[in-house]
């Protein structure tokens, strides 16, 4: 089990490295570990490959064999963002989960920006909600909520800001009121936005921009904004 935890920590560090978020010390640790372990460097390759696929980058000569191996590579990483078999979740795993999702969300950010670039809506569904219920919900919404769509007017998944703190929490993530989202050791659980929410946001942004075009001294810039998120046939 201790080996497993160690591996998880390394995976987590790798994920952080993908985000460009490791410090000098951690980088050294990863480099040492990578040199010693073939597994870890393979894992790194898989992360990179998965990230490329998510970003829709051209992966050299994608034949069916390679796509299959990419798919299996993604499948291999999947357990990182899921709860353990018995439904409980450890703090480390929770963080790894978060890390992995974060690097996923980078791809999602790209997609969202290319789309209508509505980013960062947080939904706070209230603190009273049962945390045991909350965790599977998180796992469920994280994964499929990040479709990769290029430059289409309908906003895709929301990018959800992750807590900036890297400290390992001893508890599962909790719902917290937004005002305290910056607090140390707490995580805000957010959900993918609903289509209704996206429609509402798009609508108010367009209405605002149309008014602003006639008010500010910005010339036609607000029209560019108003039209930007517009959906064909709206």
């Amino acid at each position, binding site marked *: 089990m201790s080996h497993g935890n160690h591996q998880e920590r390394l995976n987590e560090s790798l994920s952080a490295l993908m985000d460009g978020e490791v410090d000098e010390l951690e980088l050294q640790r990863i480099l040492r570990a990578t040199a010693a372990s073939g597994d870890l460097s393979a894992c790194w390759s898989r992360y990179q490959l998965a990230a490329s696929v998510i970003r829709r980058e051209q992966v050299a000569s994608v034949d069916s064999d390679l796509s299959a191996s990419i798919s299996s590579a993604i499948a291999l990483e999947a357990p990182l963002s899921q709860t353990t078999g018995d439904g409980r979740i450890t703090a480390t795993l929770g963080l790894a989960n978060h890390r992995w999702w974060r690097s996923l969300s980078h791809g999602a950010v790209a997609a969202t920006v*290319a789309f209508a670039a509505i980013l960062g809506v947080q939904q706070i*569904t209230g603190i009273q909600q049962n945390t045991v219920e909350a965790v599977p919900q998180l796992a469920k919404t994280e994964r499929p909520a990040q479709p990769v769509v290029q430059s289409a007017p309908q906003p895709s998944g929301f990018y959800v800001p992750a807590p900036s703190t890297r400290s390992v929490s001893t508890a599962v993530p909790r719902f917290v009121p937004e005002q305290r989202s910056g607090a140390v050791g707490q995580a805000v659980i957010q959900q993918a936005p609903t289509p209704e929410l996206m429609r509402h946001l798009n609508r108010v942004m367009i209405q605002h921009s149309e008014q602003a075009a*006639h008010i500010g001294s910005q010339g036609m810039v607000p029209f560019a904004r108003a*039209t930007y998120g517009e959906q064909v046939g709206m």
Partner: protein
Amino acid sequence: MVNIVMRESLIRIGCTLFLAFSLLPPLLLAQELDDTDANDSTTVKLERPSAPVVSPLPVDANAPGAIAVDAPTATSNSQASSDLTNTRVLNNEVEQWLGKLAQAMNELEYSGLVTFEHAGLLETLQVVRAVRGGEQVERVRYLSGAPRELISYGSGGHCAYDASPSIRATLLNAAGQQQVQRAYQFILRGKERIADRESVVIEARPRDRYRLGLVVSLDRETGLPLKSMLVSTQGRVLERYQFVQLDLSPVKDSALQAVSSHARRIDNRNGCDTSQSRWQVRWLPEGFRVVSVKPLPDGDMMVFSDGLGVFTVFVQRLGPELEDFKGRAIRGATVAYMDRMEVKGVPYTVTVVGEIPDATARRVASSIVEKG
């Protein structure tokens, strides 16, 4: 005299160009996360009621040698008097440019190609603007991404921002300029070449942290903004709109016709909506005033402006599926902050949308009450 002005401008350019332009490349997607985090923490700080925010130079207050137009920092007397004279010269020059800008906004006909950039994304647009029968007709069409097109008729020229008959022309008269100068400090930054034309760079630097900064490059000949950038309180460029090509020849009627079959049309020829709202905004950043109030099928919409920046407050009764949302969405320089409010047991959704800092949107949203 001219020499001195030049020298000062150069100093200013030297220390501020870094700010304006070196900040563009880092608009990488990978940094979005961290930025949002940073914004969050800033927001938290700003929201502390016991910590009044007094920062007249939020954009680059730390840059040495940044000399404000109306706040000379000279030590010796002779230096001070010469700075004061320079200040007046600069002020006059800025005012002339602002007047020219307002005039271009109202009268100029043009067509051109524009790049529109935010959050690391670049889109290209075709823009056409003409005056027909005294009303402005404007067409915007995206040349990249999904086909999107908008044609706008009329200018909403009846919307009044105090003294000015047309809010778009706020900067035309001295009174309007004074209003705007209370909220922003205008700084002449030098010149640059855009779309093969010479332009003058002017920065509108907010005097507090409640609004965004604006850097515009005005066409020397016409005063038309060839480039405009919105700058956050942290000094990051949030959005850039820049001409690639500008054609000032008279616009043909055919150029105002929609290219795509699904172009959207908006008509503002009927004047400004000035209905009464049952809602009251108890906190507004200095200089912001209500410009227009418009009833919606499900609520009210109130538009506020300080002469440059604009934000809109929506108070709506939305369906139950939207009642629980609280938070913010960001698209480019535009933020939408959603909050809930209950009045006599009825839930309302408050959404503040605008090119304003998150903290401003949040504070405005939380200050809305029913009148009376």
